[in-house]
């Protein structure tokens, strides 16, 4: 008896929906084994995990608030993946979004401090946006953040399109360049006059309005949902979306149809980087309000995972972004309720992926079991007929 895989004529639509559910169940069982090995009650752990993420109004709002940047990163990365461009640089593009918006919003603050005579380190770069009136802080800040994210994705895209520079490795390297730059900014150059780490808070005029109830959900939600809707429309209903899909599926055929692959790679990646930058800008204007340690907490990498799990579909990404946000916020309450380290959240995130990755092949292939004995008999029968 031998197992082999046979390509399906059409992708199995049924399995696309069933496999994630099976995977989540399997990953919870695997997680339970690890917890049991550590002499922790898995049922209580899962109970507190879900309760910590969804248990009351504040937690629920926080979880949804956390899902916003995850969702945007997932959608942004998804566009690049459509082209089979492995943009692992979402993390760096996200950080650029944070740097961009804090750069714009803090200019006024630095100017104020310099005028008051309490601060003397402001360079012209830091004061560059001091002319921006309060009412324009938010739109310009978000635009600058998006632009910087777009540029950071555009560089490897241009290199890939024109010189075939490996994008997986180049985007990965660029991540850490900007993470270290951000560290330099919040530890020394843009450090608040008081305290030993982190920039000052951005001015309140630049905050995204919170929904209240003590939660962290803000109006960035509408922006994120709008982006999801627009990207869904572009990817599935427009000519450009069709072209992107064609390049990803069969780039030779696309070229024969007169689709410019080089131009599309660069444009798609500019959009991808801009959306990841938007994620950073929204999270800063809505929740963190400054650039500080923890800016590189893995939203970009989780975004890659979300995009992949959702099959690059922006609308399905909403579900997975919520799932990942639940694991992230829920894990923190485990620390308080169970005395478990919040790293358990990372363990579960990784565990959800493993069965999903393992079973995803069955969407395109079916398992065929061959019986050797029967085959031999068939061959003999053939020979006899000859």
């Amino acid at each position: 008896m031998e197992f082999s895989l046979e390509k399906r004529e059409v992708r199995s639509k049924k399995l696309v929906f069933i496999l994630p559910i099976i995977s989540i169940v399997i990953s919870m069982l695997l997680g339970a084994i690890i917890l049991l090995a550590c002499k922790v009650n898995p049922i209580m752990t899962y109970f507190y995990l879900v309760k910590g993420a969804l248990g009351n109004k504040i937690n629920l709002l926080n979880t949804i608030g956390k899902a916003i940047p995850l969702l945007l990163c997932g959608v942004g990365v998804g566009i690049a993946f459509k082209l089979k461009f492995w943009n692992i640089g979402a993390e760096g593009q996200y950080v650029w979004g944070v740097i961009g918006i804090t750069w714009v919003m803090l200019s006024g603050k630095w100017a104020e401090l310099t005028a008051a005579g309490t601060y003397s380190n402001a360079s012209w770069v830091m004061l560059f946006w001091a002319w921006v009136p309060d009412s324009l802080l938010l739109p310009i800040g978000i635009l600058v953040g998006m632009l910087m994210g777009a540029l950071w994705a555009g560089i490897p895209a241009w290199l890939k399109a024109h010189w075939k520079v490996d994008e997986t490795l180049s985007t990965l390297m660029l991540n850490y360049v900007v993470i270290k730059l951000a560290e330099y900014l919040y530890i020394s150059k843009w450090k608040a006059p008081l305290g030993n780490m982190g920039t000052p808070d951005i001015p309140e005029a630049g905050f995204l309005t919170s929904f209240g109830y003590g939660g962290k959900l803000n109006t960035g939600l509408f922006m994120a949902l709008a982006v999801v809707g627009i990207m869904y429309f572009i990817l599935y209903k427009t000519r450009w979306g069709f072209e992107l899909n064609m390049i990803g599926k069969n780039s030779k055929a696309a070229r024969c149809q007169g689709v410019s692959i080089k131009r599309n790679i660069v444009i798609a990646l500019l959009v991808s980087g801009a959306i990841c930058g938007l994620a950073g800008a929204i999270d800063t204007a809505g929740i963190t309000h400054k650039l500080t340690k923890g800016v590189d907490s893995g939203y970009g990498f989780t975004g890659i995972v979300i995009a992949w799990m959702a099959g690059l579909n922006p609308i399905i990404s909403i579900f997975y972004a919520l799932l990942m946000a639940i694991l992230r916020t829920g894990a923190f309450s485990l620390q308080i309720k169970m005395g478990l380290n919040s790293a358990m959240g990372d363990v579960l995130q990784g565990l959800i992926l493993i069965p999903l990755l393992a079973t995803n092949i069955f969407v395109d292939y079916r398992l065929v079991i061959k019986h050797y004995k029967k085959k031999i008999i068939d061959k003999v029968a053939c020979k006899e007929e000859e």
Partner: protein
Amino acid sequence: MDFFTNVVVATLVMGTSLTFATIGEIFTEKAGILNLGMEGMMLLGALSGFATVFYSGSLLFGILVGMFAGVFLALIHAFLSINMRASQVVSGLAVTMFGTGLANFLGYRLGPAPSFNLVGMNLPVKFNAIIVPFLSDIPVFGGLFRVSILTYFMYALIPFAWYFMYRTKYGLALRAVGENPRTAAAMGINVNKTRYIYTLIGGAFAGLGGACISLYHTPSWNENMTGGKGWIVIALVIFSGWNPAKAIIGTFVFGGIMQLQFAIQAYNGSSAFMAGLKSIPGQFFGMAPYLITFLVLAIMTVISSLQHKQFSSPSALCTSFAIDDK
């Protein structure tokens, strides 16, 4: 010992763990499997190596358990990306998430009662420097002979790895699998078995590199103690152009940059050059390995394509292989 000898020794101590992991990743990538799980494998290797030595007192046992932890994670990656033909990028990220999460989580569970915390614990034994007489007295380069057995092992490993890859039939098979698996299969090489073997070897070396950090470089356990070294390893593989012999140059350059950062902060001399270096913020030293690698990757790819040569990853990197696929 003078200042520069100290820097050389510190660079080697840092470089040892980087070299082991880099050699492992080169072998894995040469077989056509991109292993982005490096960070997770190194961290789990560091934790399990530390915990083993903490309880057993045997350094050799600790190193072996660290390697085994790397193999365990590599097995997951190999199964997903070879058998199940999953995306190697996503699979690698999953392994990193799972590995770092598990290591950090277990770091708070495996310690002694009542806190079960391994952070801040001291090891009963540690790797001592073996000082070679006479050779260690050479100025600056004497530092090469003031290191522990792990680094001497690294000296031996590099020429062996190069010879194995470029001068033996196993090395030829390995490169064939990574460059053109279909041809390799036609030559009678079992592509997936070869890939499995080298992914697991890569995992073992990643675990070894991780164990070197927690047992040799900084003998302790800390949350996220590998601090992104797994990603530097991926950078080093590119920097060395997928050649094990050149890996040592990369580890010296990168290890040196990282070490220089600490050495300069501690420097109190009067040299104007050193004072100039001291004024560079530390984060830029941290950034340098990644920026250099990015530039090397971009420039070398452009130059090679102008000369109609190839500077690129093994052609079949990141692809899956099945004999009956058309």
